[in-house]
Each structure stands twice: as structure tokens, then as C-alpha cells.
């Protein structure tokens, strides 16, 4: 609202609504209730243990005073295409739970983010929780982004999760990026180029080349499309080896 992109005629404060607070780990799922502040999730020791990628990513979400007040679900519903948390949900196949007069439904992150600041939540629904999986045992992970200033909107951000088989070949590799389109996107072409490979320099370069078409964000006041492509390519080639080196240990860092 302070950016004047939204001028609601009515605003409902949900901070006192029962049942919307807290983080819980239920089996293989991290359940983040609607009023959970970023900082609460970031400092949760259980979350840090079962999905350290969340903490690594959240270091890039604005600054601590903002993370103290801002909520994870709020960021998801805002659906800024350069934001980190929507990327994380697309990367990990997270789920949102929306409730309204006709009942409660689960929406896959891939279906939730429709376009710039636009989601598939209907007008009469509120998102009551967001669900992220824990990382698979032994999986490596990495997140980083390029910004004009630390804590500012990402020009491009990339998240990666990868497991390695006994011979060091990449398995179940996941890559996603923010800042490159009107929504966060899985980089399926780059994943296909890397899955089953030994992640050699040539494989990484092929994946980086395959990712170029995913960048659809036109030149804007921040930077150009071609620079975004170069940054995306650079981040993929830098982050996949970091994720792989963490996977080799076979233990969560």
C-alpha cells in the first residue's frame, strides 16, 4: 500500500484471528501458518535442520526489521516475480491452502503464481497456510541472487536442490529462478540438461544455455533482458556445483 500499488477500500487485520500462528513440522512437511513472520521461520531450529535451504534463502529477503514484521504467506500472496519466497515454493513444489465460503482447497505453488502480483486465489478466499517439503536426505542445496543493493529486489535469483547417486551423477535436480519472468519459474530445460550428468563444466554450460529462453522479462528500469540472461547463466554455473558439493557429504549441513 505504501508503494501505492494497492488501494483497498477495506482492509482486514488477521493478526488476532485464532489458529493462524506458528510453524509446525508434520512428517515430511513444514506447515507455515498465515501470520508466521519471516524471522520466526528463519530462526526456527527445527526448520533449519530439516530444510536449511529456507534459512539460506531468507538471508536475502529484505532486512531483519522487515523480516520481523513481514509474513511468509503475505509475500506469497503479494506474488512479486522477483521475490525469493515464491521462488522457493515453486522450486520445492510447495502448496498453499486457501479457504473461503465454498470450502478449503490446496493449490500447488506452480498453479498459484499466475502473473505479476497475480495469484489464483479468488477474491473471497484467504490463504491460511503454506506447506513446504523437508529436503530429501542427503540432498544438496544452494540459493543466491544478484541485486543492485543487498536486501533489495533480486535482478535474478536462483535456487537449486540436487541429489547424487553412487557414481556422482546428478539425480532429481531442481532449479528455479525469480526476477526473469512475470512469475517464479522452474528451469526445466536446464534441469533436463543436468539430470544424470556428472555436472562437468560442459554440462553446466549446456544447462546455462538451455535456460536462456526462460528469461522473458523485458528490459526495464533496473537492467536489460540480455544482462538477466547472463546473470541467470552465471548463477546456474556457480550454484549447481555448490549444491552438489553439499550433497556429496550425504548429510544435511
Amino acid at each position, binding site marked *: 500500500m*505504501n*508503494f501505492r500499488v494497492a488501494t483497498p477500500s477495506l*482492509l482486514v*487485520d488477521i*493478526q488476532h484471528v485464532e489458529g493462524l500462528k506458528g510453524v509446525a513440522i508434520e512428517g515430511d512437511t513444514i506447515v507455515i501458518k498465515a501470520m508466521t513472520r519471516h*524471522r520466526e521461520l528463519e*530462526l526456527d531450529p527445527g526448520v533449519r535442520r530439516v530444510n536449511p535451504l529456507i534459512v539460506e534463502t531468507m538471508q536475502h529477503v*529484505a*532486512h*531483519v*526489521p*522487515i523480516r*520481523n*514484521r513481514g509474513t511468509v504467506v503475505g509475500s506469497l500472496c503479494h506474488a512479486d516475480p522477483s521475490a525469493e519466497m515464491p521462488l522457493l515454493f515453486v522450486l520445492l513444489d510447495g502448496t498453499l491452502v486457501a479457504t473461503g465460503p465454498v470450502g478449503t482447497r490446496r493449490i500447488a505453488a506452480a498453479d498459484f503464481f499466475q502473473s505479476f502480483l497475480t495469484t489464483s486465489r479468488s477474491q473471497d478466499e484467504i490463504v491460511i497456510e503454506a506447506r513446504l517439503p523437508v529436503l530429501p536426505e542427503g540432498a544438496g542445496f544452494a540459493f543466491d541472487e544478484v541485486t543492485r*543493493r*543487498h*536486501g533489495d529486489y533480486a535482478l535474478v535469483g536462483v535456487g537449486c536442490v540436487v541429489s547424487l547417486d553412487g557414481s556422482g551423477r546428478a539425480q532429481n535436480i531442481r532449479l528455479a529462478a525469480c526476477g526473469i519472468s512475470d512469475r517464479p519459474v522452474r528451469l526445466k530445460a536446464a534441469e533436463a540438461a543436468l539430470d544424470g550428468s556428472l555436472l562437468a563444466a560442459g554440462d553446466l554450460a549446456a544447462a546455462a544455455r538451455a535456460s536462456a529462453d526462460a528469461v522473458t522479462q523485458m528490459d526495464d528500469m533496473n537492467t536489460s533482458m540480455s544482462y538477466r540472461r547472463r546473470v541467470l547463466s552465471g548463477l546456474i554455473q556457480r550454484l549447481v556445483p555448490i549444491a552438489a558439493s553439499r550433497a556429496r557429504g550425504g548429510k544435511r549441513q
Partner: protein
Amino acid sequence: MKRSAIRPSIPERSEDPRVEVSLTVNGHPVKRTVSVRLLLSDFLRHELGLTGTHVGCEHGVCGCCTVQIDGKAGRSCLTLAVQANGCNIRTIEDVAAENGTLHPVQQAFKECHALQCGFCTPGMVMNVLSRFEEHEPLDLSESGIRDLLSGNLCRCTGYINIIAAVRRAAELLGRA
């Protein structure tokens, strides 16, 4: 048109709904009836006269309006006064002792000449203070302090002395 004929079209009476808020500010219970769209920063400054909380960008970027909301640093310009109903707010006016003795963070800013015009200083102090009070591990390396300060903009100092002040504050608080 004569200049005297120009009239501002500012409404003399607001049609905004008004609600009662009760909160604690610097240890004192406060009860006021406010417009639902009044910002906490404007509430502190205009309703309570606590003008130590500064308003810079009014959209959460500059950090000048940082106060403690229930013990944690937050932007008072991104919080509506009605949202603060029932909260415990602490502003820069409450940081030094009654007798004027500076808090160690303020003392460190003074010793290190960490301010020039001083506009950003209340927000800086409230942010730094909150991080020292948080009891989470603090990275006091150069880059760690820069990260800690990254949510507060200063247009005078170039930050070097502010970084030194955070280090000095850590010494004074026994956290170095």
C-alpha cells in the same frame, strides 16, 4: 486567476472511520481514537508528540522510522496505528536513562562520531539495539555489521563510523 482565489481542496473533516486504540508506548499506557489509516509513525509523532521517530521514505526502505514493536525492530511507517493495538512500542525517547545517561549504543554512536545530520540515527539506534537484545548470535565482522545495518540508509557518513560504533557498542555491552 488571482492567487488569493486558489483554495486547497483539503477536506476539513475526515470521513475516515475512527477507532479506539490502546497500547503501551515507552512503558506508558496510551489510549486514543484514531483514523483507521493513520500510520504508527504519524501516530507517534502527531498524536503523542514523540518526534524522535523520523519519517524518511514512508515505504519501508530508509529505516528512519524503525521502532521496537513488542521488543523487535519494525518499521512504524509500514504499520497502521490500529495494528499496534495492544502492542508494546518503544521509541528512541525511551533509550537513554531518565537522567540523560546515554544507552551504550548511543554512547558508542557519540564516541565514534557515527552521525552527522542525525536524521537516520534514531532508526539506526533502534535497529542496532534490537539486534543486541535479540540474543541470537551476531556476526561482528565488517560484512556482518554491514548486513546488520543494511536496512537503514544514511546519506551523510558513508557508514564507516557507524560500523565502528556497532563494534564499540558490542564492547560496551560485553558482546565483542
